């Protein structure tokens, strides 16, 4: 998988997150993986197609999802991962992927993105590629978000 496709996703994260209230964002390791990803509890899948086809999965724990939803809603307490919090995380995944799509367009690759599918559960695996995929670990004030990207 070509590394030049990674930066559009990292840049999107670095651009969008501060706009919705996050200050402390660090990129941790980037690794190549080749098995299904174990969901951390909440996984949002967004597919894309046109000049490049693939999937991106935003993977995080339910605690992290609640923390993000709360920050997005100006610090409103989020005690359980309810409809409103789920809708916030879906919206965020949509914003991140749309922003990445804009970044890809500046590299000359036109892509359309699908609606996000948010899955919640305690023990499930997510497969986004039959071959290798990239996993980028992002740290958000001590909370971990894994961005998994596969391209065909």
């Amino acid at each position, binding site marked *: 998988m070509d590394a030049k496709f990674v930066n559009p996703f990292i840049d999107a994260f670095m651009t969008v997150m501060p706009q*919705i209230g996050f200050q402390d964002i660090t990129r941790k390791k980037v690794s190549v993986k080749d098995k*299904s990803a174990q*969901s951390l509890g909440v*996984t949002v*899948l*967004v*597919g*894309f*197609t*046109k000049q490049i*086809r*693939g*999937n991106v*999965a935003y993977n995080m724990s339910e605690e992290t999802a609640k923390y993000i939803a709360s920050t*997005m*809603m*100006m610090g409103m307490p989020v005690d359980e991962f309810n*409809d*409103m919090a*789920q*809708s*916030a995380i*879906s*919206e*965020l995944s949509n*914003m991140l992927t749309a922003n990445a799509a804009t970044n890809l367009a500046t590299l000359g690759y036109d892509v*359309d*993105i*699908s*609606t996000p*599918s*948010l*899955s*919640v*559960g*305690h*023990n*499930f*695996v*997510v*497969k*986004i*590629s*039959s071959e290798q995929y990239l996993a980028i670990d992002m740290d958000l004030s001590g909370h971990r978000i894994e961005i998994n990207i*596969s391209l*065909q």
Partner: protein
Amino acid sequence: MEKIRVLVVDDSKVSRIMMASVLSRTTFQICDYAKNSMEAVEKYRSLNPDVVTMDMNLPDGDGIECSRKILEINPNAKIVMISAMKDASLMMRGRNVGINSFLQKPINANELIDTLQMVCQSTENSIDVLRESYVKPFIKVLQKNLFSLAGLHSKVDLELDKDDFLDVNGIAVIIGLTGVPMGRAILHMDTQTMNRYSKIMLGMGEEEDLSEEEASDSVEESANIIVGRSVSMINDICKDKEMRITPPGTICGHRIRIVNPKLTSFNITASTRLGDFKMNIGFAEGE
């Protein structure tokens, strides 16, 4: 032609005049104005307009709270929120109370008219269009391919999904749909059905050992074929619009919930001798 009646809620006189000028030569007619939240609720109750345009900032409260009161009067009220800032948390709060659409100031005339038209198309009508033109091809292709891929006869049931979520025990293959309308299709089934089906697909005997990977790959490949052919069929019929599919993403496990915020979705169940093959086809509602 009967005019569609609009109640404009905005405290700025300039905005009201601009709105009147934009809508003057359209099928929309401003039935009244309200300059604050209280007036808006009263006028909604007395005039029962077809659609409301709601400014975010009102002198006696915000537009979301005012919308919530209107939606208490009529849960099917159609409201277009207009604000100076279009930010995610605002849209989320709005959606949560049931607002259909959002626009940002300064308003573009065409965008306003398009949005009002979209919001005013009756929900019933758009569900029928989705069912007939977009979901039925999936049923045909699913039945045909269950037979051609595994020799399975099926009895199919279709219903509008009334829940906002889908519970999966086993496998779910998610394939995104882009273009118009956009959405996603999910093929899902329990583990037992997946294993029985995969053995037939792979030409294996009932007693032979099947790996989890082989099983999920068979279902994934089938989903790809079924969704791909369904979309080709839709594109053949609706030549002016092109839908595309994204590569599949597959989820395996137990008690997984896939939530569908703001999707209009349909459940298809194909009952076969191996078990039920289920599809959930969801389309994004316009913004």
